[in-house]
């Protein structure tokens, strides 16, 4: 299984499960599609935490596999899948440790909140391969950090440390790596069970920032 899904105390743990780099293959997206459909109808689910198995969140798509199978319809479905998660009424929290780049960073950007370890490395490096972020990353970065930053980081394709991501507003909290998952769990319990992404700033200032202080 490319994804490990477990519900514990009403909180769903979605673990990217292809260590060491938890690559997001076509199989991953197929599993993700089934899972999102299942989650939509899961009773009693209060929040979702997305994280990676082992040291890293994920290094994103398998670029060779992707280039061998360019399929616009499948890509659009992946895109819609992420957008569906963004519209979930329960909080979706990405707990980011280690590497989180490309489609993996896009997945995290579609979550409602991002908790990040100090040693995390983030970025959208697609342009280095003559590509562009293809699953809404550009739009999400523009919304969180402004379109100037979106142009800069997607065109440069450079990776950056957690501290820079925090300054740009691309992640919400930065903590030592051992504290990422425990903190995500606290947020998952504290956040209201019914949220609306439109009011992200409100939840951020009412729940996330004070708890981290």
């Amino acid at each position: 299984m490319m994804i490990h899904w477990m519900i514990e105390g009403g909180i769903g743990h979605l673990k990217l499960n292809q260590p060491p780099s938890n690559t997001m293959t076509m199989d991953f997206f197929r599993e993700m599609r089934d899972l999102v459909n299942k989650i939509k109808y899961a009773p009693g689910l209060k929040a979702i935490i997305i994280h990676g198995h082992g040291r890293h969140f994920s290094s994103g798509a398998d670029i060779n596999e992707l280039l061998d199978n360019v399929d616009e319809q499948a890509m659009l479905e992946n895109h819609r899948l992420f957008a569906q998660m963004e519209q979930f009424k329960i909080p979706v929290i990405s707990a980011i440790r280690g590497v989180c780049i490309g489609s993996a960073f896009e997945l995290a950007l579609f979550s409602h909140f991002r908790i990040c370890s100090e040693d995390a490395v983030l970025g959208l490096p697609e342009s280095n391969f003559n590509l562009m972020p293809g699953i809404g990353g550009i739009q999400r970065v523009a919304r969180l950090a402004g379109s100037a930053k979106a142009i800069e980081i997607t065109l440069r394709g450079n990776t950056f440390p957690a501290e820079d991501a925090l300054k740009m507003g691309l992640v919400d909290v930065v903590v030592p790596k051992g504290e990422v998952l425990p903190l995500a769990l606290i947020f998952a319990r504290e956040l209201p069970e019914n949220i609306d992404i439109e009011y992200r700033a409100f939840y951020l200032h009412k729940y996330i920032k004070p708890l981290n202080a």
Partner: protein
Amino acid sequence: MSQIDFATFEILNEVGIITLDLPPGNYLPIPGFIPLKIFKQWIGSDHLKGLIIRGRGKNFSAGGNLEQLFKESGPPDTMQCLMNEGIELLNCIQNLEIPVISVISGVCFGGGLEIALASHIRVASENALLAFPEVSHNLMPGMGGTVRLPGVIGWSYAVNMILGGDIINAKAGKEMGLIDYIVPKDQPFTFALNLMQKMTRDRPLKVIKSIMKSLKNARTLSPEAAMAEETKLFCKLAADEAERRKTEEA
């Protein structure tokens, strides 16, 4: 180098550079400070990967020359016509599918700020001053500023600047998101050129255009349509890259 009365255009390493050229204030004699036809010629030349707009000398631009504008405008229809030329030019700048950086030194008022707002990235020198002073002449920003400014800094700050005519320094501009970078006062152009090179030098034009187009779509299309369009742009690049790799192997 190409020149009209109020501006010059040159190309440096695939980057176009427009210099507002009526120092010291670089006033804009008319709203459409570069005729659209000439602007399109400039931008269409070679394969530009980016555009930088700056002012000659110490200031970016003090904006429209109001006395001249009042003198020449005549009846409301003529004024509307003149304004439309400016609006069309700024829309054209904002919609370019290559990054546009404004290099803001010294004064950036009124029409000058309108130009900066139509750009994608704003680099300011530490002594930059930004304002929409129109209100003190019983006027208002007329080239899209009232639409673009709230989109960049939010309603609350925008109301203060447009209705209050407040002059904002670079530091305050950075805090409210109006300025992206502050640099020492003799370096903003070098900084902007360097940033542009880092963004575009190693990138094929099609990658630059696809990314810029995707951002523009977010502004002009519905979320669903923008999503479909982005996927299409991505798949085109991916198909090209797959093809390129095959050819390389062969």
